[in-house]
């Protein structure tokens, strides 16, 4: 779900770029080099995972792990996402230079919400992990659909977003599984950053 250049209004793209780089600056202040290295490696790992298409339930899916990034890195997940989008645009031409901001805002909203749910919401851990993984996909999909509707493309993209709910549920299940695995093997990882 990466928006390409030339599809949504340029003004929106410009504004979103402003929001994005302000976010990058704000969320990567006061970082210890040690933490940056950890962010870089986790970003590389999730990027590598997102390149894998693996068969599940008869179809082939690929993951974004946005919710998990939010769980592990908190607000630091925002710059991590921008870095990943930048590389995707440059290396594979997924997305675009102008729409980078919009894509970062859409995904960033999902990631930040996932991180907030994990840190603030009450409830059992597996449920929170599922919700984080689910919303990490569902929120960006809904935002993309809303943006296209506002830009005059009709409501067709809400149908696409509905298709993404299946992928979002799958991602939620896997996120819960990964969190359970980390909880057993390295609980410190889940209690780390702000």
């Amino acid at each position: 779900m990466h928006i390409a250049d030339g599809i949504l209004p340029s003004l929106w793209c410009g504004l979103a770029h402003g929001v994005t780089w302000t976010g990058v600056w704000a969320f990567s202040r006061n970082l210890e080099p040690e933490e940056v290295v950890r962010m870089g490696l986790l970003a590389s790992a999730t990027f590598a995972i997102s390149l894998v298409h693996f068969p599940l339930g008869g179809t082939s899916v690929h993951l974004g792990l946005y919710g998990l990034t939010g769980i592990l890195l908190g607000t630091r997940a925002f710059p991590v996402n921008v870095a990943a989008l930048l590389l995707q645009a440059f290396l594979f031409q997924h997305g675009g230079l102008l729409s980078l901001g919009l894509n970062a805002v859409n995904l960033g909203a999902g990631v930040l919400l996932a991180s907030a749910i994990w840190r603030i919401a009450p409830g059992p851990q597996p449920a929170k992990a599922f919700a984080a993984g689910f919303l990490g996909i569902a929120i960006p999909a809904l935002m993309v659909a809303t943006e296209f509707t506002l830009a005059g493309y009709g409501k067709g993209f809400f149908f696409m977003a509905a298709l993404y709910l299946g992928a979002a549920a799958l991602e939620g299940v896997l996120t819960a599984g990964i969190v359970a695995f980390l909880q057993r093997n390295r609980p410190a990882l889940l209690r780390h950053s702000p």
Partner: protein
Amino acid sequence: MRSIDPRARLIAVLLATIAVTTTPAGNWMPFAAYFGLILLSGVPLPFLLRRALAAAPFILLASGMLLLRESWTIAAAVAVKAGMAVALLALLSATTTLPELIWALRKLHVPESFHLMLTLMSRYIGLLSEEYKRLDRARESRTARPLGRAAYKIHARQLGTLLLRSWDRAERIHTAMVSRGFEKSWPVRRTFRFAVRDAVFLLSAALPWVAIRLLLTS
């Protein structure tokens, strides 16, 4: 091209993309002129088409939905604009290495931590992809293909393992970096200085696009 300051390349492509995407629909002349400029770049057309095709599903979807509501011209213009933007991006990516791009971003003052993160990603994405394939092979050589609920569990554990390994690797990498004198920033081997020829390049590469946008569309 390789010796041109990457900042000049990045900004030239950015300006050209802005020119293309802000061109109003209705008059095909400017688009024909943009296409001529892309041909002039000398990058083989099949290569650019292949890259543009990769983005085609999304572009055609958007353009198709527009077709239901707007005129044929507007829908086609959106598809052409988006296709050209992808081609321009492919042009940048074909003439610029990843280290050069990261260097350019640093010089354009992205936060130092963001720059370090990009540098690490450029190094470790490939390595961790290989590591994931190793985990795949190890699992396949020891287990039957998992089905149903077991599949979710096993895949989740495998993904968790990769995350744990990268976490641990980060500690080692940081220790190694510090032991080699790393403090806050990263030394760069190849540098560029923005010289007159870079300015000339930027002007000659970006000006035609801007000129077409301003003159041919009025």
